């Protein structure tokens, strides 16, 4: 039962704190900090469904976020849709596309799959950069009219913030739900030994395609929301390869395969990155530090922070999933 799992309540608490802190006292700077943490958690926890649960490394996960942003902004600016239906439609459209990609590239295993995900990212970026309706390499801008139905920009930004917090909570709930389900068990079996899983009766082709598609949905919704908030999108910011890699660092740092690990790693790394990027002396080095961090984690704590906790306190496994 979901309600008996401590993490279920912790996720709700986290979302409530995120929603309340900046709103109380109207702290816009804090809101902007927390929105980045929330997006990092959304991307990392969905990436965890592929890497941590299924054992397939996706280097191009950011493609879902960027494409979601494009579909969302296109519907809002060109088709004048409201934010919420636009974001949901972006999620559905990108998931369907992911299902098609997935059925193609998920025949590959290991390093070949990982390379193919880079190919998907490159191909989508190249396509979008030349796609007339989406503004080619200049991208799209959110016009002022888009804010009007939401009561002006100020309200629109707060609404977007709360929606992103909601998507963050949903992402973590999704991971939590899958974790103890039969579907999740099939994914774990694939991660441990795909051929053995198939002999035991797991329809690996179907399971992999479904989880690849599912892991695209909420990041795409978040992309639509975030790029609306930012007011613009173009191919270089939508498909930032570094963000994809940093997602993997966050996941390894927190502990792949665990719900709490993906959130913890995303939160810690995002705060560290913001600090480094705003520090005049260290900003040029943030990727060096990310790389060093990844090496340290892999060497010293292959299970990440949560894996380390499990070793210190074995019983924590039951509580911190």
């Amino acid at each position, binding site marked *: 039962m979901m309600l008996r799992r401590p993490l279920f309540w912790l996720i709700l608490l986290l979302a409530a704190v995120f929603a309340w802190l900046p709103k109380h006292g109207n702290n816009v700077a804090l809101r902007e900090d927390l929105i980045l943490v929330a997006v990092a958690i959304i991307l990392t926890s969905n990436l965890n469904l592929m890497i941590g649960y299924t054992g397939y490394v996706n280097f191009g996960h950011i493609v879902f976020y960027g494409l979601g942003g494009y579909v969302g902004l296109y519907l809002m600016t060109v088709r004048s849709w409201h934010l919420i239906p636009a974001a949901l439609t972006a999620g559905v459209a990108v998931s369907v596309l992911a299902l098609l990609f997935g059925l193609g590239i998920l025949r590959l295993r290991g390093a070949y799959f990982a390379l193919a995900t880079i190919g998907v990212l490159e191909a989508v970026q190249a396509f979008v950069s030349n796609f007339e309706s989406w503004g080619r390499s200049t991208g799209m801008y959110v016009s002022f009219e888009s804010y009007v139905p939401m009561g002006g920009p100020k309200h629109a930004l707060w609404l977007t913030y709360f929606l992103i917090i909601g998507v963050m909570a949903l992402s973590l709930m999704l991971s939590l739900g899958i974790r103890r389900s039969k579907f999740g*068990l099939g994914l774990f079996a694939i991660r441990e030994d795909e*051929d053995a899983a198939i*002999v035991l009766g797991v329809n690996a082709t179907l399971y992999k395609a479904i989880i690849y598609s599912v892991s695209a949905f909420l990041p795409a919704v978040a992309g639509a929301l975030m790029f609306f908030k930012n007011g613009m999108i173009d191919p270089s910011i939508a498909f930032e390869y570094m963000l994809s890699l940093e997602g993997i660092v966050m996941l390894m740092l927190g502990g792949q395969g665990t719900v709490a690990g993906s959130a913890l790693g995303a939160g810690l790394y995002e705060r560290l990155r913001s600090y480094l990027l705003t520090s005049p002396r260290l900003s040029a080095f943030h990727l060096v530090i990310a790389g060093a961090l990844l090496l340290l984690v892999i060497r010293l704590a292959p299970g990440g922070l949560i894996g380390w906790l499990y070793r210190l306190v074995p019983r924590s496994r039951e509580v911190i999933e």
Partner: protein
Amino acid sequence: MTDLLQVRGISKRFGGLQAVADVSFNLGEGEILGLIGPNGAGKTTLFNLVNGVFKSDAGTITFLGKDITGRSPDQVVHLGLARTHQIVRPLSGMSVLENVIVGACFGRENQSMREARATALEVLERVGLADRANSSARALTLAGKKRLEVARALAARPMLLLLDEVLAGLNPTEIGQMIALILSIRDGGVSVFMIEHVMQAIMNLSDRIVVLNLGRKIAEAPPAEVVKNADVVEAYLGFPDIVDKLRGAQ
């Protein structure tokens, strides 16, 4: 005896090597059918063809009256045909219990997590791994991993179980326990098709034995006749001690 499994003219070629060549046989309901042959004879490959890991180059496989030729292993296990691996393949990062729950969840009865848990506990009890349920599958001894292979396959609630050298690497006590288990499986209504190099065991357990050599079926008969078969003795000529064991088992 009605036939559970009918294999007709299946073959498998790996590059220049004909691993299985035009093999046909039947397996009856409630039967224990042995499969023997020298190393590299194509026994494991034959299993891989029957449960769909490899696609046969020719021929047909019929299980419970359904043509299963070309079906994938996950579809085959849903119909009630489960197997173990000669080289054990535990899901190492998971517990022993979880491994068996996977077998139950995705087996013939497509059980829910709750049902699968009950099934898994019952099966673990049966194979003698109940006390290891919560340890990591990685931590089991070889004998433990072989039992886990059997437990996972049994949890699928199969009608037919393929056992690939489940006795290899076990000590005499463990062999005795495994043989008792195999007999109890058959008495529970599950037919068994088993590959084994431990001659004493296969001669005593099997109702009939199929002998493969260089991919071809060279004999199919009750144990007493197989050991007298000139072709079989010749196939094992390179392995004189096995010929002795064949005779000794008589």
